[in-house]
């Protein structure tokens, strides 16, 4: 760990803009956060439904190979050969029961064991294949959601999730029995923290669709869980009323059950955002590429019990509503870019909506407050070792 200097204001609602743009801070974030004591969602089991299915993913540069072995057990490996470290698998996803490294032809099975290598008699005396399985990071699974942590010190996953567990489980359809519909992948020209700093305040203001469709926000709550400030939104679904500007209403129709809490968002520190809105189930796996770029894989799901018509409805809604080109989210994408440009100016970003006392942190918020992001910022400050100015 390097000691990085950044003067942090005494008020909890002021975030120094330098934190979003300084390269030295980014390098330290990779060490302290992305390779530190955090759990990072990297896939959902339903992306690998069958034995031999795999997906590759890079978590802040670290290549991962996430697979289901021939016995159906999910495993996570570093995607690097145990010989000299060559990237083992290049496909984004696929199905294989063996992985062969082309460099010197070492062969691994779906459990990560080294099962073959040419000319081992010429190796170091005592060489034993059993000593060279694919290396693995720690991983754990919550209702199918696969988390990885690079650090040995991270607490148990359930403790990490704390009071966000219920909301996350419900968002994963209550049982985690999802079916993958496909991906939207995009890079945003913004710091990863601007991407996750999207707030509850902006929705009715930035997104004109709400106004034009006479789509009032339903009643709901926002709360934070654990000292990391994971954010959960739970709200009743509201349905657009009045004359619609849309000719095809199916885009904003709700065909599921339980409109009482029909809308949920769980945003886990540092970069994971997941949402269930109308009939869209969306898990967003995000990773920083550098200080000014974040890559987001929006993965969309149906439920395993859906009939054909419901799947088609979800496909239409998922493709058009909440992604990088979605009816009520394209504007977010544009704000990510613009806020990053604005962050190259002196001073602090100052949160207002929902802040009652700048010297106190709360954990319950109104749905359209922006102050729900502040506990997360306090955790970020502490993990980065930035000193808060004396009150």
């Amino acid at each position, binding site marked *: 760990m390097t000691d990085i200097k950044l003067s942090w204001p005494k008020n909890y609602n002021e975030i120094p803009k330098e934190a979003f743009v300084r390269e030295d801070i980014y390098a330290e974030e990779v060490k302290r956060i992305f390779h530190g004591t955090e759990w990072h969602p990297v896939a959902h089991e339903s992306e690998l439904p069958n034995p031999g299915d795999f997906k590759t993913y890079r978590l802040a540069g670290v290549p991962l190979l996430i697979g289901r072995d021939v016995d159906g057990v999910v495993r996570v490996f570093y995607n690097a050969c145990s010989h000299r470290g060559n990237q083992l698998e290049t496909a984004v996803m696929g199905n294989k029961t063996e992985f062969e490294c082309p460099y010197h032809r070492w062969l691994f099975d779906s459990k990560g064991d080294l099962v073959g290598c040419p000319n081992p008699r010429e190796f170091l005396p005592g060489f034993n294949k059993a000593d060279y399985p694919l290396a693995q990071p720690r991983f754990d699974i919550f209702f199918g959601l696969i988390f990885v942590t690079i650090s040995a010190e991270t607490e148990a996953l359930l403790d990490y999730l704390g009071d966000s567990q219920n909301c996350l489980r419900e968002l994963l359809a209550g049982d985690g029995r999802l079916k993958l519909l496909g991906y939207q992948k995009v890079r945003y020209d913004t710091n990863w923290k601007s991407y996750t700093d999207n707030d509850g305040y902006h929705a009715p203001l930035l997104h004109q669709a709400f106004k034009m469709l006479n789509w009032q926000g339903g009643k709901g709550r926002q709360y934070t869980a654990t000292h990391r400030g994971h954010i959960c939104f739970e709200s009743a679904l509201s349905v657009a009323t009045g004359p619609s500007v849309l*000719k095809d209403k199916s885009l904003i129709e709700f065909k599921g059950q339980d409109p009482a809490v029909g809308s949920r968002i769980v945003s886990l520190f540092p970069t994971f955002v997941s949402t269930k809105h109308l009939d869209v189930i969306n898990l967003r796996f995000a990773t920083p590429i550098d200080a000014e770029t974040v890559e987001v894989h929006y993965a969309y799901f149906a439920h395993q019990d859906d009939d054909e018509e419901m799947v088609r409805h979800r496909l239409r809604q998922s493709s058009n509503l909440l992604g990088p080109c979605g009816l009520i989210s394209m504007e977010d994408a544009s704000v990510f870019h613009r806020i990053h440009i604005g962050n190259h100016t002196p001073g602090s970003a100052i949160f207002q909506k929902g802040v009652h006392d700048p010297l106190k942190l709360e954990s319950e918020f109104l749905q359209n407050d922006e102050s729900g992001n502040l506990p997360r910022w306090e955790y970020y400050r502490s993990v980065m070792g930035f000193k808060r100015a004396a009150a």
Partner: protein
Amino acid sequence: MMQADISLEAALNALLLADAHALDGKDMSGWLGNYAEEEAASYYCRSAENSEHGFALGFMYDDCRSRLEDRVTFVNDIWAGTFQDYRTRHFVQLTSFDRIDATTLGMRSNFSVFMTPKDTGITQVLAAGQYLDSVRQGKNGELKLLSRRAELDTSVLPRYLVYPI
């Protein structure tokens, strides 16, 4: 090539260029005008990666004529003034076509799209890929898109999309 094929090819090329022209001119009603006036008219934009793995999900999924009309509303009315605007240039190249039945043709073409955000003025590639189209031939021989799938080799977009590809 027969004379009929040559004039058909010219007409298909004209349809391709008309679509590129409408998109680069941000003329959404012109874009809509290139589609057949049938309820089945559709436009999809998705990554080849999704298609290869059997996923129908896309960046845009307009599976009926009214969804196409709504896409015009998104761009012209709902999103107006909320995003950093950008120019695009579509380069299209017909690669093959065939007749499916008396009133329908299949057409494939390559595309590459450059984009230049207004604020930065820096030009970069937005996407490359191919159009997989079915084309409706009307009574007088006029051609309209019945269905277009813009299949992107670019599986990770360099930014969000406002306009169709």
